[in-house]
Structure formats: C-alpha cells, structure tokens
C-alpha cells in the first residue's frame, strides 16, 4: 500500500490541537451499517483508516480540506464537516 504520509510530510499544517474540524457523528453507523466504508479509499489524505474490528478511525490532522468525505457519505450523512478555525489546518505553500 503506498504511503500517503510521505506526501503529507511535504505539506505545511497548523494543527488546531484538541479541536479537530471534522468528526464522525456516530461511529456505530460506520461499524455496523456501512459496508463500503469508501471514505477510507477516497480521502486523498488517508485520514480515515479501517480498524480490523470494522470500526473507522478518523485523525483529521493531515486533512486537505477538500470535502470528499462529507459528499460521498451521502447514504448515512455521518460526517460532521466544518472549516478549521481561522489560520489553522492545511496551509498551501503553492496550492
């Protein structure tokens, strides 16, 4: 599996420690009702990872703020998606 970390290591972030701007509303829905768990495939920063136990874990530190997860989770609408606080999150040097 290719390592997206190597790519994210080049990017510049200002992590809003303790205030993730994206959260999973109800992890039970991911674990029990969502078979595809496509967020783990489609997220370009690999923020969503599938635990062996069927659960999905989200760490939004590397988020690129593209909005994919919110949009493809259209059956369950289980993603609470907001902009980070002003000046936080990804800071593109080139964009």
């Amino acid at each position: 599996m290719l390592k997206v970390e190597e790519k994210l290591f080049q990017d510049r972030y200002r992590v809003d420690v303790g205030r993730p701007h994206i959260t999973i509303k109800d992890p039970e829905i991911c674990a029990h009702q969502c078979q595809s768990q496509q967020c783990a495939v489609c997220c370009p920063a690999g923020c969503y990872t599938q635990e062996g136990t069927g659960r999905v874990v989200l760490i939004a530190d590397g988020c690129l703020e593209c909005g994919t997860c919110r949009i493809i989770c259209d059956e369950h609408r289980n993603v609470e998606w907001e902009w980070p606080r002003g000046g936080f999150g990804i800071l593109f040097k080139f964009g």
Partner: protein
Amino acid sequence: MHSVVCIKQVPDSAQIRVHPVTNTIMRQGVPAIINPYDLFALEEALRLKDRLGGTVTVVTMGPPMAEAALRKCLSYGADDAILVSDRAFAGSDTLATSYALAATIRQIMARQPVDLIFTGKQTIDGDTAQVGPGIAKRLDYQLLTYVSRIVEVDLARKEIVVERRAEGGVQLLKTATPCLITLLEGINEMRFGDLEDLFRAARYDLQVWNREAAGIDEVEMIGLKGSPTVVSKVFAPRPRAQRAQIIETQDSEPRNLAATLLAKVFTQHPKLEKEIAKRAI
C-alpha cells in the same frame, strides 16, 4: 504597565528541505513566520496587560516584508508596532542586532517609560539565544532567562518575582524592573484574537524606523562591520535516509529476533550497551 516585545520574522524551518541528490537548500515555498518562541513572549506580555492594564509594543528588525509579522502581532492584541529597517543592518549578527534593538528601545523609552522587555528564548533559524542577553547588557538592565512563570509584578515598587528554569530545579528570583525577560517555550498558548484586533491590525499605520530614527549613529556597530562572527559556509548534513536494517531469522521466533537485534545493535553501538548497563535497575 508598558511592555516591549522583540520579535523576529524567520523562515519556517520545518519547511526547509534539502535536495536529496544535489544537497542544495530548497528555498522555494519556504514561508516567513513569526519566530515561534517569540509568540510565547508576546502571549505572556498580553496576559500581563489583561491583568495590570497598559500597552504592549512589538518591535522587529528586518526587511520591509517583516511588516506582515508585526501585523499578525497586532491581530493577537499588541497595541503598537515598530519596524526597524535599513540597508545598513544587512549582515548583522546577534551582537550587532542587540546593539540596534537596544538603541531602538532607548528611543521608545524617551517617549514612554518601559517596565518589561520580552524576547523569545531563541530563534529557530539562528538558535543562538544571544539577542536577549545582549540587549539587557547594553541597556544595563537585569536579565532573567528561561523564565517559566511570572509570579508577581509590583509596578509601584518596580519589582518582579519570577520562576526561572535552572539545571535540576527552578530558581525563585526577585529583581528590579525595568528588566529583560526571555521565556521558556510551552508555558502558554497564543490566544485567538478578537475580530476587533483583526480590524485594528489591518488598519494600523505602521511605524517604520530607519537607522537614524532608531537613534543609531555609530554605523560601525551594526551590519557586517559590527558583527564579529561571519558564516564561512552553509551545508546540508549528510542525509541519513537509508531504510532501517530489518532483523530477520529463519524461524522468525520472537526470542531469536530479539537476540539477533540486541547483538546487532550492541556491535554497531558499543557505547549504547554501556549506557544501558549503567542505568538499568
């Protein structure tokens, strides 16, 4: 209460990359930021202002683009900002820089008394931690470095009590103000300015001082002439980007893997073996 906070705009060193092949410094796309250590100093000054009232003035010595760093300090809540910028400063090392900043602070004091001067512990590009001590020496003020907590400030009696990080413990020190304080990192967290501060920062009419305005007439004390140290070369450390030596045994039995690992580690790092033997209970 009037605090002066010296800040510096530095390249964001976390973004500096060394080209793996040519070993040259990849400077494209390295944004300029406020030296992170200085933000702890500014936040501490702003907290004192919240408690005791008064104003906070931010000063920096640098090229015209350092204005952005000052405006960001205003957006956090600083009241005034002064950019000291002049071609004559080019090439200044920490000795020359402390001379220029000390002169600038004298000019500020001529207009408004100063109670405390703050600098960050060090810069992330220079890391020398000499500008703070240099300014204090030139102004003949007491120097309190590696301060981890400001315990008490008594403006009437012009006294301050602080906790200072020393080796193996913390000193409780009392001294006279005005004095210069450099702060330990991590003791506070920069606030998220109010909208009003953002507007004020965007509209602030920045004061830009050249050499004369900063009260510097001895030109030989600044720039290259005033700098005893000179950088003779800058180079990249030899890259350590080889992959880990993966330990394998035929049966990949944990016990054998562990034994092979220890053997390899200790042969390649004999000092480590002694270190562990000495320290283990």
